[in-house]
């Protein structure tokens, strides 16, 4: 049985839901994005990283997510495993996207597209992927402090990227987090509880 015509997004992707469930938001986003896309085209764009083959992500989606990963997780400055060279953050997102129901996957694509092309005067209507490091970070922070729709979308994309970085065990020593311990500590399994007394 299909229990939801709109397949539920994972919680961390919840901010994409308004894209599907609120027609007026979709229209607003698409209109704004189309306008900005034109501006962005005129302003030029970076080439997408093409070396990695993705199962689900399209090259332009991978480009946006890779850039967002670089902006959100500048790990080289903090002595953490690289978010692009060591931890396969975007590949992890790709694996997750490959498991999504079609409609959820479509929504993710729409969210990434809108995020990259969201019109903002203060950024001269540039696409996110064409912004410098400082400007790109400022863009992310501006989205987070924006109206509810922008907050939701930004929270979703941040969670998608950061979750797929921090879930990698190689990142945990940097947090002094030990991860799974039962085996390490030799904790014995108790098995099923015995039947209660009559």
């Amino acid at each position, binding site marked *: 049985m299909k229990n939801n015509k709109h397949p539920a997004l994972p919680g961390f992707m919840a901010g994409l839901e308004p894209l599907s469930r609120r027609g007026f938001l979709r229209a607003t986003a698409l209109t704004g994005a189309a306008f900005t896309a034109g501006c962005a085209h005129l302003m030029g764009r970076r080439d997408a990283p093409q070396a990695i083959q993705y199962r689900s992500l399209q090259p332009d989606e991978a480009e946006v997510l890779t850039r967002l990963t670089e902006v959100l997780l500048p790990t080289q400055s903090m002595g953490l495993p690289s978010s692009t060279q060591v931890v396969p953050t975007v590949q992890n997102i790709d694996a997750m996207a490959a498991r999504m129901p079609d409609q959820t996957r479509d929504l993710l694509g729409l969210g990434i597209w809108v995020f990259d092309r969201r019109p903002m005067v203060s950024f001269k209507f540039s696409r996110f992927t064409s912004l410098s490091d400082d400007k790109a970070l400022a863009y992310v922070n501006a989205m987070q402090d924006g109206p509810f729709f922008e907050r939701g979308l930004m929270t979703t994309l941040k969670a998608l990227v950061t979750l797929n970085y*921090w879930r990698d065990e190689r990142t945990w020593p940097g947090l002094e987090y030990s991860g799974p311990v039962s085996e390490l500590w030799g904790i014995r399994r108790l098995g099923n509880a015995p039947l209660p007394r009559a």
Partner: protein
Amino acid sequence: MAFVTVARDGVPVTQARDVALDATLGKNFTLKTDVVVVGSGAAGALVAYEMAKAGRDVLVLEAGRYYPSAQFTEHLGDTMTKIYQDQVGQVNTTADVIFVGGACVGGSTVIGGCVMQQPSDAVFDGWAKRHELPQLSAENIKPYFDKVGEQLHVHTNEAHEINACAHKVIQGCEKMKFSWKPAQRNVKQCALTGHCLAGCPSDRKMSSLVTHLPWAAAYGARVFSDTEVVRVLTRNGRANGVEARITDPDSGAHVADMRVDADIVVLAAGAIQTPLIMQRSQLKDTSGQIGRNMTVQPFTQVLGKFPEPLYGFRGALVGVYVDEFTETDGYMILSGLAEPESLLAQGDMRAGKAHLEFMKDYKYYAGVNAFSVDSGRGYVQWDGDPYNGDKTIHWNPNHEEFENIKRSAALAARIFFSGGAEKVFLPTFQSLEADSVFNLDAQLDKVDYGLKGMYTFRANSFSPHGTCRMGADPYQYVVGPNGETHGTAGLFVADASLIPEPLVAPPQWTVQALAQYVSDRINQRADSLFLS
């Protein structure tokens, strides 16, 4: 007298792959049983055990997958993908409140924080009076709580179960002269790993997976996973079975359709799924209340950063409980800091270096979950046909509920500042933090109610209830005082849906006491309910 032996480990479960490989079943088959129980969580497992022990033929149908505890990894990210409802994606219609629940054999008991709390006597005496449920007065329901408490090793946390995170809450409370208590939990010989939310691999959490389900199986109950009940079948106004669909949990492939013929049907799929099944079944409903009156118990996670390393993620997940405001304001504040992945659901996780600094301070954090009361205005709805329709969960805070969420978070922040926190991260979609108690209110005032309170506080719900509320009047309540629905004979409800009004307590213990009560009522009426 025959000996009854509980398996040492695991539960015998028929999974989608077993059905797919069994040529004798085919794509469409029918089973017969005395009792079909829908859902294998806190309530369903208990009912299955009680029915099987009484000699009934019992079939348990669980929509989620079977994930045996021997395979638990203590890795929260992986667990969320496998056995959390909709991969932690069950949300309200505006997608800013997450309804967290387990979708597996054992239900939410597998991934819960083990908190067991008995509401005050006034709650049940109130039910007796307001909803004409004298059978559930404080005096009458107490034996059911006692029985469940004994079966599940409910105990008050001892000193070694109060970790550094909880100690900060205690320090804050004592400075502010707030009452606090060690939490009560259903754990046997807790190994203090802190991985409750990823399931307990050493079987110390007394979830249904290691208690009522294997006990039910020992008495002959059969359990099917990957089996979602589409609707309840009726004949002449009486429930006589269910129709279900079996789906492979990995590929999503439709494996088979199942029909179950049963003398009685017990719905125990939780406060969201149970009313949806009833709505899909188009059952008689004189009350018009199926799916309505949903209490959400919204909670936010407040983080305090302390000057010294706490490693607050080590030890028992939930140590203490602030009960100062429970009776007066309906706030519950429970200590707890889970895996790093949980920080990403706390509030705004920042960006760039600020994000990395936020995460690298993990060992300095203490956390609490601040629950507030809501008024039971939420509802769940099934639209469309039973197979291709759509579930929606409707709840956004009204102004009063929004203020309650804000106040409970503010109290939690104050407790942390009194306990020595140098900073508190606020549970908001906006990026907000307070570096002293003196700018806390100013920061919180930046959170504006806006449009329906959307995308303001990052609220979650772990304990929705009340969607098939229980009471005597068939024009106001879905379920009667014995647990049988007013509209359909032979159809019982035994889960959190029954709770007739907003409850200010983690509901698991209450739910299991109610399931015990409903089981007893069914067994008392066995002569008239069972053809066999």
